[in-house]
């Protein structure tokens, strides 16, 4: 319980340290990330993020979840499910940028 709590606090502290989205990500990379989100995330979550084999990632579906948890899910995946880790090609900052895009709604 205590471990879970301190983990949660650590995650929250980490989230607070995240830069504002878009900062330091150049336009070409943003365009790559936007395409990755729609097309590759979309292959499981649907092009419009309404869900597929993977769950829906619409703003309402994510409203209850913390940025930090979502960033971590992108970077490390969800073991025991088909959600793979994306750390091999995405930075913390880029994952945070993707979460911000999801919160705005894709398209």
């Amino acid at each position, binding site marked *: 319980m205590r471990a879970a709590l301190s983990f949660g606090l650590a995650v929250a502290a980490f989230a607070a340290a995240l830069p504002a989205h878009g900062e330091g990500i150049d336009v070409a990379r943003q365009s790559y990330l936007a*395409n990755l989100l*729609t*097309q*590759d995330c*979309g*292959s*499981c979550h*649907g*092009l*419009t993020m*309404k*869900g*597929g*084999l993977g769950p829906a990632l619409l703003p309402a579906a994510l409203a209850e979840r913390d940025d930090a948890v979502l960033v971590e899910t992108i970077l490390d*995946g969800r073991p025991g499910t*088909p959600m*793979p*880790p994306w750390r*091999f*090609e995405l930075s913390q900052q880029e994952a945070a940028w993707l979460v911000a895009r999801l919160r705005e709604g894709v398209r």
Partner: protein
Amino acid sequence: MTSRARRAARLGMKSLLVLFLFLAVAASAMAGTVRGTGDLGIVVERASGRVVIIEHSHRSRIGAVDGLGDLSHASAVFSRDGRFAYVFGRDGGLSKIDLIEAKLVRRIVQAGNAIGGAISADGRLIAVSNYEPGGVKIFDAESLDLVADLPAESNGQRSKVVGLVETADGAFVYTLYDAGEIWIADVAEPARPAIRKFPGIGAFPYDGVTVDGGRSYVAGLFGEDGLALLDLWRPEAGVRRVLSGYGRGEEPLPVYKMPHLEGVTVAGGNVFLPAVGRHELLVADVRTWAEVARIPVHGQPVFAVARPDGRQVWVNFAHPHNDTVQVIDVPSLKVAHTLRPGKAVMHLEFTPKGDQVWISARDEDLVRIYDPRTLAELGAIAAEKPSGIFFTARATRLGY
């Protein structure tokens, strides 16, 4: 001749010429509509809600149909005369398209989230597999009116449905992703469907397909190493696990796109299947389903499609290896060639006799066409974010 008479004659000639031109144009327009359907097909433009109609005799684009909704993961089946395509969209849309007239005949939205479909062996019924609400809905192929609703409910929970195919017996076979079951639905009397259920087939079956000309139905498992096999000649024998433990207990690699079993066929007496979480193709003897070989490949295989004569198997890959296609030499069970058609190769489709293979490169906005014998590029067709390619020859193949 008086000048008046000359003018009248010139006028007459002019009107005749106009009439002749009009007739010629009308005749050629009509000739355009009189054509066979055997060399037609569609390319899905997944992000634009549109399909492009193509013909593969001259490798050209002959039309397009718009307004089909969210076509991520869209697939299609064809009426038995090859004239109509039924397109299944992610948003639950079922669209009937006339390939000759290049127009949308009817479109319904039959569920919140759909994944694919099938056409019955007699061509009268269209079945759609749905994620939300989980189940199968069956429609009249002519009118698209609903004729049966088959919720996929197991232990009080709805399940997403994958791997829907028709059988020669007039039934539909499909797999429940969440519940891990295979069901066979006999819809000879659509009002009273008879469903046989095969539970406990394994964890997270992600797709299913008929192989060996419709003899067997095989479901791939995401949650464990192996596949679930049902002999459709003897369903009473039940589902058995094949190729189990192919991962040898090693930690699977992450999968950035689910493999697809569509196109899995017998080549040289063996079945070639994508492994899950391994950069390998699994090769099994079609009679015994014992492992014959594993072929190391460039990435996580997505589609493994045999040339119609089985001499080659062409494979594409999941992100981030999806700029590449490899050609397996079937007699030697080795990778013979590696091609780079471009960014984000989504799908590949052979012409019915294997003289061409069409490959969609999504992020190149191109469909490239190759000669499978020489590997020469024969041409390319522009398409916006192309994904699935479906030729009308599927109309005459069981399970397509």
